[in-house]
C-alpha cells in the first residue's frame, strides 16, 4: 500500500543514522550527506561515466499546496528550459482539470540543463502530486530518482503528507534536500518550521534551504544543492538494458508512450526491445527525452530518463513497473511497484443504456492514462450495464468522472461509493464484496469484516477536543497522542475505512478551521455489524442506491438519506414515496408530492431566447437523469450519501 509507514526492513537499515531526536515513528531520518553504498549498485564505471556523473534525477515532494509545481516553474525558468512565451503558473500542470482545481493530479517529468562551475549538468525533474489519493504517483516518481526536494510551507509547517511522502523517499534511499518554501509570506514561521524539519529528518540547520517559489528567492541555492548533494546515477552502460517504466500515457495518434529510467545499458531508436513481464517484443519506433513536449533522440543512456513509443495501442501490454530490456541481450527485471489497491468502489453507468459500448471504450482509454483506475463490468437492475470501479479515494473518483465527461464526452451516473467488505458465509466461504448487491442474504451470512485504517491527524492543540469528538463519533479508537512541537499535536486513531471515505476530511477541516492534515494507511480487516440498507422509490428497490453500513448508524443514515433524496429528486406529475429499508423493515420514509403544472406564462414580445435558455438549462439537468420505474432520478441523487450532514 502506498500510505504505509516505514517497513521493518527499512527501519533496520536506518538504524545507522546517528541523529535520533524523536521517539518513533518520527525518527526515520537519514544521513543527508550521502555516503557510498546504496542499493542501486555500481558495477563497472566505464567510458560514458563523465556524462552520467552530470545527471541528477530528483523529484519534488510535499504536502498538498506547499508549492511544488510553483518551484518547478522557477527551476524551469532559471535553467531556461521554458521560454518566457511558454511560461505560465504551474506550467507542468497541463491537464485542464489540474489547472482548474489548482492541484497536481499526475506526476510530470521534464529535463533541464544547468551549468554549474562551468560544467553542464542534466537534471531530470519530476513534479509530484500532494493529495493523499495520489501518493502512488509519488512512489513511482521516487523509483526513478536519486534525490528529492522536500518542500515545507513556512506558514503551515510539517503536515501529514510531508511525513508520509518523506517516508516513501527514505524507503527508496533518496537523498533528501529539505526546503522551506513561501518565506515571503507574512505568516512564515521560519525558525519554528526549521525546528520541525530538523526534528523530523534529523538534519542540521544549515542543510535546510529557504525559498520563495513565488518570488524566485533561493532558486540558485537549490540548483547548487541538487548538483552537490544529490548523487549522480550509478549504472553500467555496457550491461544489458534495464529500464524501469515509471509512468505511461496514451496518445490517440501515437499509442502508448512509456516513461522510463535507464538503470543499466542504453536504449536506441530502432532497437528491438522486450517488456520483461509480458515477454512482448517491439521495435522502438521513437525514443527521446522529456522536455515540455517529447523531444526525440537517437539514444537514451544509462542514468537518464526518457520515453519510448512502439505503436502499441493496447494498455495491457505496457505495465507501469515493468522493465524494458533488449531482445538480443536481455537483462534481469528490476523490482517494480506494488499494485495499487483501490480504497473505494462505485458503479459508473452511462446515462443512456445505449451508450454502454461507447463508455466501455472510453474507460479502456482512460485507464491507459490512469493505471490506478480499476474496473469490471457489472449490471444493475436500475441502471443496466455499467462498471464497478475501484478508486484511490473520493477525489480520484470525482476526477475520473470529470475526465470521462470532458475528455471523452460521456455523461455518466456514479453510484454510492463503498469500501471493500469481506463476507463470510455460514458454509465458511469468504466473499469479497465491492458492491452492496453482492452481499449474501443475511440467512447465509456468518459475519462481515470491514477494512480498518490507521489515521494520523496533525493539528493544533486547541482542536484536540473537536478532533476527538469527530473521530470517536466515527467509531475511531485513539491509539496515540503526541506533541511534535509545543504547538503541534499528532493524534493516531484506528478507524473503519468506511467512516473516512465520505465526508471525514471536510468535517475535519471545518472542525479545525482548516488547521489539520490527515493521512492514513490500511491495517487490515475487523469484524463489524454491517447491514445492507436499500432505498425504494414508489416501492421499487433501486439497487444503485443501496449502501452497506454499520448497524448503529443505519437508522440515522436512512432518515438523512431519505431527507436528502427528497430534496434532490425533482417533483414529478405523481407522488413519489421514498423509503429506506433494512431487509423487509422500513426504517425511514419521505414523500414528494406531485406537481401539477410547469408551464410558464408566455413568450413575451418575441423574447424566445430567454425561454429557450431556461428550457435548455432544464434539459441539461435532465441529461443526468435516469428513469427508474417511472421516477426520474438525477445524477446527484446517486451521490446523495456524500452530502449528508
Amino acid at each position, binding site marked *: 500500500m502506498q500510505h504505509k509507514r516505514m517497513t521493518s526492513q527499512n527501519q533496520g537499515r536506518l538504524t545507522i543514522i546517528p541523529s535520533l531526536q524523536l521517539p518513533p515513528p518520527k525518527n526515520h531520518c537519514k544521513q543527508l550527506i550521502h555516503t557510498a553504498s546504496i542499493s542501486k549498485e555500481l558495477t563497472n564505471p566505464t567510458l560514458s561515466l563523465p556524462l552520467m556523473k552530470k545527471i541528477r534525477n530528483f523529484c519534488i515532494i510535499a504536502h498538498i499546496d506547499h508549492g511544488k509545481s510553483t518551484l518547478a516553474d522557477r527551476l524551469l525558468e532559471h535553467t531556461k528550459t521554458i521560454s518566457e512565451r511558454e511560461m505560465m503558473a504551474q506550467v507542468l500542470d497541463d491537464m485542464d482539470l489540474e489547472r482548474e482545481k489548482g492541484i497536481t493530479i499526475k506526476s510530470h517529468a521534464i529535463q533541464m540543463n544547468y551549468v554549474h562551475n562551468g560544467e553542464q549538468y542534466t537534471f531530470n525533474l519530476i513534479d509530484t502530486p500532494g493529495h493523499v489519493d495520489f501518493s502512488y504517483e509519488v512512489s513511482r516518481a521516487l523509483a526513478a530518482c536519486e534525490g528529492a526536494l522536500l518542500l515545507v510551507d513556512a506558514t503551515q509547517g510539517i503536515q501529514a503528507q510531508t511525513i508520509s511522502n518523506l517516508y516513501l523517499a527514505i524507503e527508496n534511499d533518496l537523498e533528501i534536500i529539505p526546503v522551506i518554501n513561501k518565506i515571503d509570506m507574512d505568516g512564515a514561521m521560519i525558525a519554528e518550521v526549521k525546528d520541525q524539519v530538523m526534528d523530523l529528518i534529523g538534519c542540521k540547520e544549515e542543510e535546510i534551504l529557504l525559498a520563495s517559489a513565488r518570488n524566485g528567492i533561493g532558486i540558485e541555492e537549490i540548483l547548487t544543492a541538487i548538483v552537490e548533494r544529490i548523487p549522480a546515477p550509478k549504472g553500467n552502460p555496457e550491461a544489458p538494458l534495464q529500464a524501469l517504466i515509471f509512468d505511461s500515457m496514451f496518445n490517440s495518434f501515437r499509442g502508448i508512450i512509456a516513461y522510463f529510467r535507464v538503470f543499466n545499458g542504453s536504449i536506441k531508436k530502432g532497437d528491438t526491445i522486450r517488456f520483461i513481464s509480458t515477454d512482448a517484443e517491439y521495435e522502438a519506433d521513437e525514443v527521446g527525452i522529456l522536455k515540455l513536449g517529447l523531444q526525440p533522440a537517437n539514444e537514451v543512456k544509462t542514468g537518464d530518463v526518457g520515453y519510448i513509443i512502439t505503436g502499441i495501442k493496447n494498455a495491457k501490454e505496457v505495465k507501469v513497473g515493468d522493465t524494458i530490456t533488449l531482445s538480443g541481450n536481455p537483462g534481469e527485471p528490476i523490482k517494480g511497484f506494488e499494485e495499487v489497491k483501490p480504497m473505494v468502489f462505485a458503479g459508473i453507468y452511462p446515462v443512456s443504456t445505449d451508450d454502454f459500448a461507447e463508455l466501455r471504450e472510453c474507460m479502456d482509454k482512460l485507464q491507459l492514462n490512469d493505471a490506478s483506475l480499476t474496473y469490471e463490468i457489472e449490471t444493475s437492475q436500475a441502471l443496466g450495464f455499467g462498471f464497478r470501479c475501484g478508486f484511490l479515494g473520493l477525489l480520484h473518483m470525482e476526477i475520473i468522472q470529470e475526465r470521462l465527461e470532458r475528455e471523452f464526452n460521456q455523461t455518466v451516473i456514479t453510484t454510492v461509493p463503498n469500501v471493500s467488505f469481506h463476507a463470510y458465509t455460514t458454509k465458511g466461504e469468504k466473499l469479497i464484496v465491492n458492491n452492496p448487491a453482492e452481499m449474501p442474504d443475511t440467512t447465509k451470512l456468518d459475519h462481515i469484516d470491514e477494512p480498518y485504517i490507521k489515521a494520523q491527524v496533525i493539528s493544533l492543540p486547541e482542536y484536540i477536543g473537536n478532533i476527538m469528538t469527530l473521530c470517536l463519533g466515527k467509531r475511531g479508537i485513539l491509539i496515540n497522542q503526541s506533541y511534535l512541537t509545543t504547538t503541534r499535536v499528532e493524534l493516531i486513531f484506528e478507524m473503519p475505512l468506511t467512516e473516512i471515505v465520505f465526508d471525514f476530511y471536510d468535517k475535519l477541516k471545518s472542525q479545525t478551521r482548516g488547521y489539520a492534515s490527515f493521512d492514513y494507511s490500511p491495517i487490515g480487516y475487523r469484524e463489524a455489524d454491517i447491514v445492507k440498507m436499500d432505498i425504494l422509490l414508489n416501492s421499487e428497490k433501486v439497487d444503485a442506491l443501496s449502501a452497506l453500513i454499520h448497524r448503529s448508524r443505519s437508522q440515522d443514515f436512512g432518515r438523512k438519506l431519505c431527507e436528502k433524496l427528497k430534496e434532490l429528486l425533482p417533483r414529478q*406529475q405523481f407522488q413519489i414515496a421514498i423509503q429506506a429499508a433494512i431487509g423487509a423493515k422500513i426504517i425511514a420514509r419521505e414523500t414528494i408530492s406531485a*406537481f*401539477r*403544472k*410547469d*408551464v*410558464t*406564462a*408566455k*413568450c*413575451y*414580445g*418575441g*423574447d*424566445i*431566447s430567454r*425561454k*429557450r435558455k*431556461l*428550457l*435548455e438549462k*432544464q*434539459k441539461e439537468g*435532465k441529461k443526468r437523469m435516469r*428513469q427508474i420505474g417511472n421516477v426520474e432520478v438525477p445524477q446527484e441523487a446517486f451521490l446523495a450519501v456524500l452530502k449528508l450532514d
Partner: protein
Amino acid sequence: MAGIYIHIPFCRKACHYCNFHFSVSQKLLPQMINAIAHEIILRHEYLKEKIETIYFGGGTPSLLQPDDINLLMDKMFSIFDVEPDAEITLEANPDDITAHKLLAWKSAGINRLSIGTQSFLEADLQWMNRAHNAQQAYESLKLAMQNGFTNISTDFIYGTPDLTNEQWLQNLETAQELNIPHLSCYALTVEPNTALKKMIDLQKKKDVDAEKQSIQFELLMQWAANKGYEHYEISNFAKPGFKSRHNSSYWQGKHYLGLGPSAHSFNGNTRQWNISNNALYIESINKNIVPFEKEELSSTQKINEYLMTALRTNEGIVLPHLELLSDKEITAGIIKDAQRFIRQHLLERKNDALILTSKGKLFADGIAAGLFR
C-alpha cells in the same frame, strides 16, 4: 411575410407581478417617440419581406397621444412595404380607453385591440396593483365594441391567491357576454425581481398555489371548448377567424423587427434585443447607433426553438417540418424521446404531428425540455 413590434416603455403604475421593461416616469416620452421613429429609419434594411402584422406593445402604448401613433405609423408605412390588410394591434389599458381615443386609433389604422383587463374583480385588480378598477375593466370593453372595434382581445390573469374557481369562470363569462372574440389567459407567474416576489419572500403576500392554478387552467380549457373558443396556443383562445396573426408569427418562426428599448428582433438566423434602458436607448439612437445584443442561432437552437414554440400550439410539432429543419436521424431521436410522454398521456401522435393532450398542456415546458436536442 414578417411583423413589426414597437415597444412603448411607459406605464402609469407598476403592476406588482410585472417584469417587463417600462418606466413610470413619463419624462422621456416625447424623446422616446422621436427615437423610435428614428430607429425605424436606422433599421430600414432589417426586413426584406412584406409586413403582415404590426403590434404596439409595452409598457402601455395606449398612453400615447394619437399624434404619436400617427407619426410612428407614417414612418413605418413610408419605409416598409406594409400589406393593405395587415393586422395592426395596439395594447390598451382600460383606464386609457375613451371614445375619443378609440376613434383616433381607428383613423390611425389600428384594427385590433389587446386590452389589459386582467380581471373584472375589484379585489383582484387591487391585489395586482393595476391602474384601473373593475368598472373601467368592464366599461372599456363595451366602449371599444361600441366604437367599431370587433377584433378585440382581452388579457386575463388567473391563479391569483384569492381568486376562486367560480370567480374565475365568472370573469370568462363576462368577456364572452361582451362578445370578445379573443382571450389571452396567463397563470400568474412570480418572476424574479418583481414587487410580488419580494412581498411573497417577506410573507406580505400569499404565494401562488400551483395546484389551484392547474385546476383553473383545466376549467378554462373546458369552458373555452364549450363556448367555441379554439385553444390555439397554450395561453390563447379565439373564436373562428380571430387568432392573433402577430403572436402566431412568433410561434411560426416568421421574421420580425422589434423597435424600442428591450424589443426583440428575429431574422431567421439571429435574435437580437435592444438595450432595456430608456435613457441609454435614446442617447444611442440619437448617435445613429442601435444599441442591441445579438445571438446567432445554431442549428440545434433553431430546432429547440421550433420544438418549444410549436408544442405550445394546437398544430403541435409537425414532423415533416421538423425533418426539414433538422434531419432524419434527429427527427427519429425526438420521436423516440416523445414515446415516454405519449405513454404518460401527455402527448399524442396525430398523423404527422406531436400534439399536447389537455393534461400535457400543463407540462408544456418540461415536455419541450425533454425533447430538446
